[in-house]
């Protein structure tokens, strides 16, 4: 573009040629007593002028025309192109050299001015671009605004996704598609008039590492020196995308947190509305003569148990996140022993925890509820003895709860963890049919598993709870 003549330069050339003509006429006529040397000196002026306004080439052409005209009209022999004597040859050579050097300097200066002006325009565009994309409210809006701005500057701007490119559904010519993939994978500018696959129709600009799409620009008005500028523009765009994505993620997180808070508040209100009257009822009955003997307290306890199961179930359904911590099963099982002491009518609970059992990762209140339900079931079905034992294997701790009752009938084994499935006389024994189902769900929610062992001889039921081991460090002394 800068090599072509601009209209202003053509005018300047014409002016220089006219000046050369005038000086030749004045010199030939000897007006003002001009000699050949003075005329030659005067002729350097239009040559300098042309060279400084145009390029070195224009300067050289003007110098040639001037020296040819000097030679033809003024140097003897007149009206020939021949030259006599070294003086004139030297004059001519100096003359041409001055024109070339001046022209070269001027052209360099002009090129730098042009570059600076283009940069200024580019940086103005960059500023406008950044301002425009800052207005975007979503990823789609951002891409639309950015493409519109680049389209105005470069004619045609599009986006191609990595997926489309690898599936060859982008509609691009093979060379262009290769250039696009190269740009994506090497975080570079490729395609038309760049260093990589310059024969492509489009120029491709990457959005930075890990981007899933690539910017394509049509070839018109796209100087090769724009590559760093394009990478900067694409960088701004990429940052805006990251920013919007971060905003979006934060909004989603805040929404989820607000939902959690609401659920927690509802569950808390529900728990309060259930446990408060129960407290009054329980304590009131405890003072009432004969209430214990009539089994009223046991009924209240049964009601409490059912309510706690339902609340736990509601909590699981609400998907409220669990607070895991390292739990020592010694503590959990100690609380079970207290429960058994209250509940068991002469049934012996034999709980054994090895000294070096690893800590498990669990929500401690839920874990106590879970094992409480399993133990409750065992105590209701046992004849005289319930055993709890623990052992560790690799990254899993297993808790076995076994009783010496009639065992689980084979036809119930598959559905034992479904809600409202109870053993034969469970109803009479105070089972709600919810306990094991909730224990099973609680185990799952804590990353564990509650299963029923199937011994061949049906000598009692054995429930097996496996829990993940918690990461444990030795405390510093």
């Amino acid at each position, binding site marked *: 573009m800068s090599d072509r003549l601009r209209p202003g330069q053509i005018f300047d050339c014409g002016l220089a040629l006219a000046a050369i003509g005038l000086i030749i006429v004045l010199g030939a006529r000897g007006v003002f007593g001009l000699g050949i040397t003075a005329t030659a000196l005067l002729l350097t002026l239009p040559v300098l002028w042309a060279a400084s306004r145009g390029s070195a080439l224009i300067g050289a052409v003007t110098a040639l025309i001037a020296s040819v005209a000097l030679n033809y009209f003024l140097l003897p022999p007149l009206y020939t192109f021949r030259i006599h004597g070294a003086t004139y040859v030297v004059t001519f050579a100096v003359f041409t050299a001055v024109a070339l050097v001046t022209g070269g300097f001027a052209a360099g200066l002009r090129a730098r001015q042009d570059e600076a002006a283009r940069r200024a325009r580019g940086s103005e565009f960059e500023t406008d671009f950044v301002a425009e994309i800052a207005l975007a409210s979503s990823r789609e809006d951002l891409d639309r605004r950015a493409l519109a701005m680049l389209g105005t500057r470069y004619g045609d701007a599009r986006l191609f996704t990595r997926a489309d490119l690898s599936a060859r559904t982008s509609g691009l010519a093979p060379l262009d598609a290769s250039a696009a993939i190269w740009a994506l994978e090497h975080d570079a500018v490729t395609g038309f008039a760049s260093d990589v696959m310059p024969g492509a129709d489009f120029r491709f600009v990457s959005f930075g590492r890990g981007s899933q799409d690539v910017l394509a620009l049509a070839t018109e008005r796209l100087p090769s020196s724009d590559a760093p500028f394009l990478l900067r523009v694409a960088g701004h765009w990429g940052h805006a995308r990251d920013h919007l994505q971060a905003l979006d993620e934060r909004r989603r997180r805040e929404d989820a947190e607000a939902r959690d808070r609401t659920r927690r508040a509802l569950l808390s209100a529900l*728990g309060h509305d259930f446990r408060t009257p129960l407290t009054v009822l329980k304590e009131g009955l405890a003072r009432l003569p004969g209430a214990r003997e009539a089994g009223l307290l046991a009924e209240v306890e049964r009601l409490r148990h059912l309510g706690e199961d339902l609340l736990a179930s509601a909590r699981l359904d609400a998907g409220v996140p669990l607070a895991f911590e*390292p739990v020592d099963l010694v503590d959990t099982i*100690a609380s079970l022993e207290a429960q058994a002491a209250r509940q068991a009518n002469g049934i012996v609970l034999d709980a054994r925890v090895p000294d070096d059992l690893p800590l498990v990762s669990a929500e401690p209140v839920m874990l106590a509820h879970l094992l409480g339900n399993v133990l409750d079931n065992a105590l209701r079905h046992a004849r005289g003895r319930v055993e709890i034992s623990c052992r560790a294997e690799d990254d899993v701790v297993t808790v076995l709860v076994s009783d010496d009752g009639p065992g689980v009938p084979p036809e119930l084994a598959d559905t034992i963890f479904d809600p409202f499935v109870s053993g034969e006389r469970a109803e009479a024994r105070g089972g709600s049919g919810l306990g094991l189902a909730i224990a099973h769900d609680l185990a799952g929610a804590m990353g564990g598993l509650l299963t029923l062992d199937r011994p061949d001889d049906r000598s009692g039921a054995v429930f097996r709870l496996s829990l993940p081991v918690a990461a444990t460090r030795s*405390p510093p002394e």
Partner: protein
Amino acid sequence: MRRLVLVVDDEAAIRRLLVAVLDRGGYDALEAASGREALAPARRKPAAAIVDLRLPDLDGMELIPRLAADGIPVLVLSAELDTAEKVAALDLGAEDYLTKPFDGDELLARLRVLLRRAGETSDGICRHGPFAIDAAHHRALHDGTLLSLTPREFALLAALVDGRGRVLTHAALLERVWGPAHRDDLDYLRVAIRALRRKIEPEPSSPRLILNEPGIGYRLAGG
């Protein structure tokens, strides 16, 4: 003279229940249906306060530090199994908590622990149950026998004895024994409690002395 206990709960039924239980335990009750009432100047300063965390006007959480600042030990009532609320209340200065539905006798036992804490012995030796901690000489005694403890174990047992049967949160114990930077390193505490139990519990896998409150902390039994 019977000691006075402030009862703060917006539910009249729970207040009546608490008044009856307190009467049975030999205490006078001062009832307050709201946080404002609880803070109103009373003729007699209560020896302890029982506060429900759900109050209509003032959050029970706001009431705790104000009562604690007046030197009134606070027992918190919570209807939530979720431990976060109780831990927050204990962090704010509540001395202990009970979850509904609670037992009247249990409430009285907790109250006794709370009130005993107020009157300490002054011979420089801290006692609770079978334990005696002589902080000045870094000695811990179990039924009069000198225990051989590491410095961390000593600090842990001293903290528990100092609690005199009230619950100490995991974070509070960690902070006291390992420093504030280790408030969340619960695995340290679990491992150290195990080591300590091996030295003091007759049956370490079935602890009777150092009791755990799931998700909250530890307390020393009885006394």
